[in-house]
């Protein structure tokens, strides 16, 4: 039966070819000039390019604010949805996920149009609103998942032992739900930094995010510089994923 493990071979080959090799190519292109010679010039260009650096800073800032707002708005929502006292049907959580099935660009454009119609000037405020609107479900869902599977008796035990419900919530429920919050952060933070199109639509081209300058460079055939920018982002992804603890500590073995 041990040969069953060989069944993963086609997929491993696929992954090496379509995941590992392309990422290596990003690095190779990032450290090459247009003639294919090794250079640190592309990275140097980024670190001396005022515009690129400020776009980068703005992206990180918007992503932090977006993630913060999503936690602030999403956690209570997830908690209410997971609480049988307030919400008895699973349909409500489906209602939160359903808008995601409608094309994100179309929703974003409609949001921008709605703002224009209401007389709100497109800018930082509308960008944040639109981002929260796009990413809130990604925060609510993982937190809801953790909260709804959580053993309620821990919080009850804390209350029985004399904690106020508020204290029990902060000292027991919140720490236990952290895995959901971390995966929510992972699903919101990096995608926000890297969005393109959405930020332009929501701010009438006033605010660019990091994804947009990658796209602009790739599209104007500045592949090496574009790759260098993508490489910078890969480094940040590497760092953020370090914060996410190794989740797949499953039981080893198991025959079919």
């Amino acid at each position, binding site marked *: 039966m*041990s040969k*069953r*493990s*060989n*069944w*993963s*071979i*086609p*997929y*491993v080959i*696929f*992954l090496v070819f*379509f*995941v*590992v090799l*392309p990422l290596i*190519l*990003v690095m190779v292109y990032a450290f090459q000039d247009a003639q294919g010679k090794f250079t640190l010039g592309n990275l140097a260009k980024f670190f001396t390019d005022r515009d690129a650096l400020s776009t980068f800073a703005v992206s990180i800032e918007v992503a932090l604010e977006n993630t913060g707002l999503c936690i602030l*708005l999403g956690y*209570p929502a997830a908690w*209410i*949805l997971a*609480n049988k006292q307030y*919400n008895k049907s*699973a*349909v409500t959580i489906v*209602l*939160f996920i*359903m808008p995601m*099935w*409608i*094309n*994100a*660009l*179309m929703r974003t*454009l*409609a*949001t921008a149009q*709605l703002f224009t119609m209401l007389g709100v000037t497109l800018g930082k405020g509308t960008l944040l609103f639109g981002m929260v609107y796009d990413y*809130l*479900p990604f925060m609510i869902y993982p937190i809801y998942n953790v909260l709804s599977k959580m053993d309620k008796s821990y919080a009850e035990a804390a209350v029985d032992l004399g904690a106020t419900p508020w204290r029990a919530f902060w000292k027991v429920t919140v720490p236990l739900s952290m895995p959901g919050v971390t995966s929510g952060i992972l699903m919101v933070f*990096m*995608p926000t*930094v*890297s969005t*393109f*199109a959405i930020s332009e*639509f929501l701010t009438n081209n006033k605010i660019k995010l990091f*994804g947009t300058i*990658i796209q602009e460079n*790739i599209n104007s055939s500045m592949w090496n510089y574009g*790759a260098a920018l*993508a490489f910078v*982002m890969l480094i940040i*992804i590497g760092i953020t994923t370090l914060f996410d603890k190794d989740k797949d500590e499953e039981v*080893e*073995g*198991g*025959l*079919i």
Partner: protein
Amino acid sequence: MKKFFAKLYIWVLLVILYAPLVFIAVFSFTESKVLGSWEGFSPNLYRNLLTGQMQGNASLLAAVKNTLLIAVIAAAVSTLLGTVAAIGIHNMKGRAKKTVSFLNNIPMINPDIITGVSLFLLFVFLHFSQGYTTVILAHITFCTPYVVLSVLPKLQQMNPNIYEAALDLGATPAQALRKVLIPQLKPGMVSGFILAFTMSLDDFAVTFFTRGTIGLDTLSTYIYTDARKGGLTPELRPLMTLIFLVILILLIIINVRQDRLQKQNENR
């Protein structure tokens, strides 16, 4: 009182979340060029969309067709590849298993744009001309991990002895696979397929970088180009409204069926 505020909070969030969708739906019944200006009730946009008579915008229907075709193919291939891979990964041990699981996680952690740019560079590097094939390959790349993760839990829940029993009772491995293993994995495969299908439908960035210059458009890239040209094709409004209705009806059916199944189980 607490309950009232909890419910109110949820409903306020939902109203905000659905406002743009309702906005699109309302303005799908007027013929104005721009979303947001009302020029009297008219079902003409629906008629145009359904009869395909749009002024110079027949490519919208082509984009819808492409989107569906790519999503069906990508989801089907991902389901096959991912299920076989999950069986393999489930039977692996130690470091090899960890490595494959890690590789499988990469496309899910990577933002779309990284997946898109890196695959773009791959196809450029290999001088592979970009079009349908590259888009489908790219979609399979980011869809398969979700299938693997949907099927793996089903394998873990399965009692390994059932498969052994089938073999002991004289089934060939192929029969045991078809009659025992696949039926047990089916729920995971179905949810993996649905996930892959929706990921593919909704994708913009990866398609954008891998579609090449042959003028291949999916719904996302069509909307993007359209919006950059200034002004969306008005027929997109009825299209989005119809898509929304279809999804709503499907979800209601699924939920009603689940409720019924649950009640049946409770009655037993």
